[in-house]
């Protein structure tokens, strides 16, 4: 290997390396240009929008007027939404067919299917089987015996009926167990 050749070789190598690098640079630039034009990259405007929204939400959370969560009736969550304290969505009770608000549904069911005095009047023979199934798994609750009920299911002496719907003093009895 003669001296000049070495130098030339080195120079040539660098020159070739520079060419390769330039080609790759153009490739990368072209790729980035394409991504930018097509909006494929996580959209820059979207990013700014998201950042702005999150900054807004953060400001609202840090707002001293919302200091305690139970302070006001209207609690603001991180998206800035408020929920009324009673759920307002309305749907139909499957028992009586009335339109009930979601927040009032549990108390309504209590009256409609369970302990309410007036509810007893609605019970018919055909629905007792369904109610048996429903009540069998439920925890014991205290009911006063219904001695003045006019339902045909009731025995006149007030002891638990065959249907097993009545409870006395919190004792649960199977329908077919008569004490």
């Amino acid at each position, binding site marked *: 290997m003669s001296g000049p050749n070495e130098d030339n070789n080195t120079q040539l190598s660098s020159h070739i390396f520079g060419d390769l690098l330039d080609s790759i*640079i153009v490739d990368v630039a072209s790729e980035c240009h394409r991504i930018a034009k097509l909006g494929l990259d996580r959209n820059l405007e979207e990013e700014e929008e998201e950042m702005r929204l999150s900054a807004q939400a953060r400001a609202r959370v840090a707002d001293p007027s919302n200091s305690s969560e139970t302070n006001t009736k209207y609690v603001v969550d991180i998206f800035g939404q408020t929920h009324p304290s009673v759920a307002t969505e309305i749907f139909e009770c499957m028992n009586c067919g009335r339109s009930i608000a979601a927040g009032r549904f549990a108390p309504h069911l209590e009256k409609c299917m369970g302990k309410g005095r007036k509810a007893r009047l609605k019970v018919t023979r055909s629905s007792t089987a369904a109610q048996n199934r429903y009540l069998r798994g439920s925890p014991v609750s205290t009911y006063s015996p219904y001695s003045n009920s006019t339902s045909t299911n009731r025995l006149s002496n007030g002891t638990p009926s065959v249907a097993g719907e009545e409870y006395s003093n919190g004792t649960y009895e199977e329908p077919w167990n008569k004490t």
Partner: protein
Amino acid sequence: MKHSVNRPPTPDGAEDQGNEPILQEIIKIKLIESGEKERLMEMLRERLIECGWKDEMKALCRAYVKKKGRNNVTVDDLVHLITPKGRASVRDSVKAELLQRIRSFLTSAAL
């Protein structure tokens, strides 16, 4: 007679360099024909991705695009943006490896 026939001969490049430019061209042609150029390109690309060089360049482009606006950017802009920084920030080990490969090709091809 056509003017092109009487065209003076193409100058030989700088006379004192001998036939270096022509040698250069021959080498380059050999590089391409043997497929070595492709291999070298792929190798360089891989190395640059591995060491994060490509990501740096992409980040530069993204920042530039964000500043200028998506629709005001040309490929030329990006090339001019990246070239100086890109050439300077290639890792030394990568450059050395590639130069070594090229040099060994040159010695084998020159024989």
